[in-house]
């Protein structure tokens, strides 16, 4: 239901990386940092009406603390059209190197929110030495809101571990009912090496 009298907005989708030490930021800290990046970039962002006006910005699926990424997403509503290349240049000028915007493009106003549009996330793990096998458990018990919950790994592991030397990739699917964190999965796998880093390398709508 769109208000025909509402002012036109332009929905800009940006992807950014989150690497090295900044992988330790929380989702909320990243969100704050990006809002400030947008302000520094001087983009004509839309502001919500009402008691406590705020920037119209939305973020993709949260990344666990400690997991880096090459493909995080935020959507920003602009009051005026700014060529995507120009917006990208302004955002990059306003970003710190390890939380750097990589790409900007416009999407339909009706497109699904970034937080639900890409349920499949592929992660790359780096180990401290080459690995020849990863034994994945059938079930993992996690504690959520002080309640224990048992997750069937097969339900979430959309693509199995692919090993290559001291690296591995795997894909997890986020379900509307919940999801399995990549770091939690790794903690429960039997691996004869230590994890050095975990990075989300792709977010996809379908496999």
């Amino acid at each position: 239901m769109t208000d025909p009298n509402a002012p036109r907005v332009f929905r800009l989708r940006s992807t950014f990386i989150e690497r090295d030490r900044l992988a330790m930021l929380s989702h909320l800290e990243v969100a704050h940092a990006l809002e400030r990046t947008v302000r520094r970039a001087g983009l004509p962002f839309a502001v919500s009406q009402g008691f406590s006006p705020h920037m119209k910005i939305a973020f993709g699926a949260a990344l666990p603390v400690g997991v880096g990424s090459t493909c995080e997403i935020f959507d920003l509503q602009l009051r005026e059209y700014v060529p995507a290349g120009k917006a990208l240049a302004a955002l990059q000028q306003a970003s710190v190197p390890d939380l750097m915007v990589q790409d900007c493009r416009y999407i339909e106003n009706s497109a699904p929110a970034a937080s639900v549009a890409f349920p499949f996330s592929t992660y790359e793990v780096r180990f401290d030495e080459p690995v020849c096998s990863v034994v994945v458990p059938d079930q993992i018990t996690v504690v959520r809101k002080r309640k224990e919950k048992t997750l069937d790994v097969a339900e979430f592991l959309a693509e199995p571990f692919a090993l290559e030397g001291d690296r591995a990739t795997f894909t997890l699917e986020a379900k509307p009912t919940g999801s399995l964190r990549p770091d939690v999965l790794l903690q429960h796998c039997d691996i004869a090496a230590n994890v050095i880093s975990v990075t989300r390398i792709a977010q996809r709508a379908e496999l």
Partner: protein
Amino acid sequence: MVPFKSIWSHVAPLVAHAERPSRYINHEWGCVYKPDADFRFCMIYPDTYELGQANQALRILVNAVNARPGMSAERGFLPAPEMCDALRQAGLPMFSIESCAPLAAFDAIGITLPHELAATNVLEAIDLGGVPIRALDRAEDDPIVVGGGPCAYNPEPYAPFFDAINIGEGEESLPEGLEVIRQMRREGAARRDIWRALARLDGWYVPALYRWHTPEEAQAAGSWIEPLEEGLPTTIVKRLFDGFAESPAWEPCIVPFAEAVHDRLNVEVLRGCARGCRFCQAGMMYRPVRERSADNVVDSVVQGLAETGYDEVSLTSLSTTDHSQIAEILERLNKRYEGTGVRISIPSQRLDSFGARMADLVAGQKKGGLTFAPEAGTQRLRDVINKNVTEDDLFGAVDAAFAAGWRRCKLYFMIGLPTETDEDVKGIARLVQQVYDHAKAIVPKEQKGSIQISASVALFVPKAHTPFQWDGQIPPEEALRRVNLLRHSVKYRAVSVSWHDPKTSFVEAVMSRSGREAADLVEAAWRRGARFDAWSECFLEDAWRTSAEELGIDVQAVAQTSYPTDYVMPWEHISCGADRRWLAREHDKAVLEQTTPDCTFGRCSACGVCMKLGADNQLAGDRND
């Protein structure tokens, strides 16, 4: 010497498991990194990142040192308690933020002393940094440890822990002092020679070069210190940053990832306050009054918001609504930022209808609570403390505020002020009830239920360099009696009285009023585990009390003794510019219930600051009385 290199690879696994990793990871927007500097300084705030990152002194001084070619300034914050323990357990030192280098690897370390409850954290930081806590125990290649900040105005309880202490505003004097250290280190000078050179710089105090007198010697000599060598100053006068008013109000700042306190753009619009409240140390310390012009402030806000991306700016000072151009500043900023979601705030408002109007200018639709500080409940006692505010001023402010839409108002009071009687305590109750009556008369009938008036009551702590420095604190039992008297005197159910029983107040009094002997107490308490004394969940009262008993320090006497005004206090050798005779005269006028006007509105009150410092009030226009 400890090598200057990053220990991040060792620290990282601990940070990954720390409560808030973002306290330790650096790489924020706006941080300055000068790896090629030949002189390295680490500026420390003796508490965690989220408190220290907001600190104005840290921001200003890091910028001032980094502005010097070849000098770098990094930030240091005391890790949270469990991280301090984790580092010790892993055999790792406290580190700087930018280079993640051990404190001991720096040429010099600066620690700001922001309040009376940070002393044990100073020791925790120095020790965890791998540096001997006492200046006399430091080796030639250990860093030179310098201090400064508000508590440096009574430096003695900290004296043995610092090589040198900078009194007053550090914008110019800190880089000057560091330049001396840099030159002399380059020439291979001994630590003691560096002390001698620093002691001869204006505004620098080197405690180890002075003998501490016995009480009898001090009273006879008129000073507690005696130079151990020829040519040392016997009074250390504070440094003033003369260029404050003309310097840009935009102070480049770091935008933290971690949620810090006051996490917004802070623009210092003026420095100093000459209202002359007789209990207030800040009002004595930061004189004379210096205003930055409206153009300077507005341009700085515009630039600061653009460069940081903040959506809130606070116009900071001791009394922002006293600025002669405050209405113009707020109107210009309002116009500029209308509809952008940018919020403008002022930390406190002056207690009259003008103050309330200024608050209304920035509040927009969102009106939370408004805070006023009458400090005392009767005109008699307000005259004693020189709070030049009448009931009419207060009611004018309240009328204006509630007419503008505010529904909550908090009033700050002190109990235990010199000459206070039960009538004054009951006066607080009467005054807050009258405030409620005023609010009720203004607010539409159907909204009367939403009126909230609260009184927050704090215990008077005598502070160095104030007219009340000679006055003792009332005993804790008496404080409790007066609070109960106040509570019983408040008859309105819509008025609430809050009183936070300060378990730490004896520590504050000791740090505020003691001489050099208190340093042993600080060290003993720290060795018993005291740290983060300002965090109520961490405060170890026993560590302090047992240490005081062991050292024979009567903390009750330190807090509660009143002295005649000819008594020489332990900070007599430190000067904030205000003449001790003026302080004594203000004390005597207090007893006579006579007030002294603010010299930025009226005539000079002869406090002596301008004469002593060769300075003047610098106002951007005529102040609006």
